[in-house]
């Protein structure tokens, strides 16, 4: 009876899975040249593995043929690799000249295939096994040339791919090339150890059969890259690899079990494992699909808002422009009774403009595209600027606007000046808006490792429920109901997001309705 060693079983399963993957990928998209080349790679790798198996199993009368077949198969690997690198990740349109060039390269590879298979110029004779896992042979005259061809084509292919990484635009294509390079790299490093480095530098020949195991990395990663299989969801692939490996170990357990009873027990474990493994992979897969879908929706939403905002602004600019020109008296003097209505139209339009600006800000913040420009800033000066901007407004309403400056000298802090200015302006503006008499006081002081700005007003105040919802966007109201504080709009939600981007804190306190409010902003000293 023929018995198989573990190495032989391993080689044979790689041989099978290699061809299986090749045909699987090919039949997925038969017209795609990448899939065709991949089938070529797996077929030719199959010849190599088949040749090795023949040498190992069929004995001396077949060993010369086996050895030559192994070399013939190996000789096409660099050719396919190089062709692949030209076409990857998207097949290129080729000029006639370039097609000839590729044809010429193919001729070189194919020549080596036939020379290896039918002539003694590469493998001469004496193909035999070396303990424990090696094969050796006497090599012919063309062998050095064969090595050179191998080296040049493989390096050229790798060079091509690295060049492509830089010009690639989409995330998925980048992933494809990365996968391909990782696979090829792992195979080259692990494969060259027993087949090149050990024999060449240490004169150890006995492990060359281990080389083919390394090729599995290349085959699997390339298959993933071509079929774009979950390239953006690496978790699924990792889960599958893990389940596959454990499954393989369990199968080996079945065969190596000493008694029938143990074989049955191991077999049942294997079946159970397959079921759970399948469930695990499915769950991971669903989770990733869900995540991708969420990301897609969120991105589409942001883009929609950006474009719509721009579109909305055009008529708003026209309304604002013409109204202001009418108010200036450019089209003749306006009757007194029209002044108030015109002003109301103007202010309503301003509110719309503000809303569009806010929507744009939100879409940027939520898409993570808000660009921050951090610079050393004197907070005291910034507050002074805000006050001088809003003084007129407060005066009109007969309100005071006080600034209690810090007693000690405060350090400048690293913030995006414009964004923080927007936040302070928003808070102080709200204080004026919601106060009928009295006014607002701004305080600046140091609290531990932060600078704290407090804006207190003598205005309408807030209930606990209102405070709780204050910093939410109105798209998030409970049960879809409108839940923002009347008239507050999106300003506070944006303020909160902007302060978050500074790793700061913002919150509000109030004793209740009619008792005024205080808003706090804390920014870390950096």
């Amino acid at each position, binding site marked *: 009876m023929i018995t198989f060693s573990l190495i032989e079983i391993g080689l044979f399963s790689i041989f099978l899975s290699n061809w299986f993957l090749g045909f699987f990928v090919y039949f997925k998209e038969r017209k795609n040249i990448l899939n065709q080349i991949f089938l070529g790679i797996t077929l030719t790798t199959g010849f190599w593995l088949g040749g090795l198996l023949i040498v190992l199993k069929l004995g001396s009368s077949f060993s010369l043929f086996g050895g030559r077949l192994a070399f013939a198969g190996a000789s096409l690997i660099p050719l396919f690799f190089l062709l692949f690198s030209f076409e990857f990740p998207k097949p290129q349109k080729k000029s006639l000249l370039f097609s000839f060039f590729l044809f010429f390269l193919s001729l070189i590879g194919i020549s080596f295939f036939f020379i290896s298979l039918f002539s003694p110029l590469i493998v001469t004779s004496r193909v035999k096994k070396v303990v424990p896992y090696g094969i050796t042979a006497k090599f012919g005259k063309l062998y050095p040339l064969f090595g050179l061809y191998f080296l040049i084509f493989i390096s050229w292919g790798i060079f091509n791919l690295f060049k492509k990484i830089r010009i690639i635009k989409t995330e998925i294509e980048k992933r494809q090339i990365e996968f391909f390079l990782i696979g090829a790299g792992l195979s080259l490093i692990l494969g060259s150890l027993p087949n090149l480095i050990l024999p060449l530098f240490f004169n150890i020949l006995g492990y060359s059969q281990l080389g083919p195991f390394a090729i599995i990395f290349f085959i699997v990663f390339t298959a993933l890259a071509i079929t774009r299989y979950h390239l953006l969801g690496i978790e699924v692939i990792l889960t599958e690899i893990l389940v596959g490996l454990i499954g393989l170990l369990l199968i080996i357990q079945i065969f190596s079990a000493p008694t029938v009873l143990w074989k049955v027990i191991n077999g049942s474990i294997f079946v159970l494992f397959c079921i759970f493994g399948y469930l695990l992979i499915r769950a991971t897969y669903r989770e990733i699909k869900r995540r991708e879908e969420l990301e897609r929706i969120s991105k589409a939403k942001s883009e929609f808002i950006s474009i719509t905002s721009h579109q909305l602004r055009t008529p708003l600019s026209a309304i604002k422009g013409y109204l202001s020109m009418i108010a*200036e008296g450019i089209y003749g003097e306006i009757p007194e009774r029209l002044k108030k209505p015109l002003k109301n139209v103007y202010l309503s339009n301003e509110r719309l403009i503000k809303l569009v*600006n806010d929507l744009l800000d939100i879409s940027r913040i939520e898409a993570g595209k808000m660009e921050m420009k951090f610079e050393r800033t004197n907070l005291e000066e910034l507050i002074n600027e805000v006050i001088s901007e809003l003084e007129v407004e407060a005066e009109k309403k007969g309100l005071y606007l006080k600034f209690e400056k810090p007693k000690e000298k405060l350090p400048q802090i690293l913030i995006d000046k414009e964004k923080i200015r927007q936040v302070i302006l928003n808070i102080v503006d709200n204080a004026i808006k919601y106060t009928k008499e009295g006014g607002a006081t701004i305080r600046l002081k140091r609290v531990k490792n932060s600078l704290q700005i407090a804006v207190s007003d003598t205005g309408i105040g807030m209930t606990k429920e209102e405070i709780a919802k204050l910093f939410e966007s109105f798209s998030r109201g409970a049960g879809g109901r409108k839940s923002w504080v009347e008239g507050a709009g999106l300003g506070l939600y944006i303020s909160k997001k902007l302060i978050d981007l500074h790793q700061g804190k913002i919150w509000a306190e109030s004793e209740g309705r009619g008792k005024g409010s205080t808003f706090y902003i804390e920014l870390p000293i950096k």
Partner: protein
Amino acid sequence: MKKILIVEDEEILAQMYKERLEKEGFEVFLASNSKKGLKLAREEKPDLILLDILLPDEDGISFLKELRKESSISEILVVALSNYDDPKSKKDAFSLGVKEYLIKTDYTPKQVVERVKKYLEN
């Protein structure tokens, strides 16, 4: 009389700024796209250009690139006036030497005129 060129595809807005600028005694030319804008710039040699960024065919950024290439018109002052609030466009516009990037909804025509005057004085 100082000359202003407005490159703006929205007819209503172009007319509005033209009207307001003429009120201040400027001579105003209108171009509805980048190509016409460059042609008018060569012919009239305006003192300042108000440039929209989102234009049909070629956008304001490529207008600026062309403008800066031609020595006879490359020194003309440009103020971007657009509703397209895009960080990258802003950056590109500034690197091509615009004086300012104004968002239309944030300024009344009067305020735009004030800016224009400020840049022409210096």
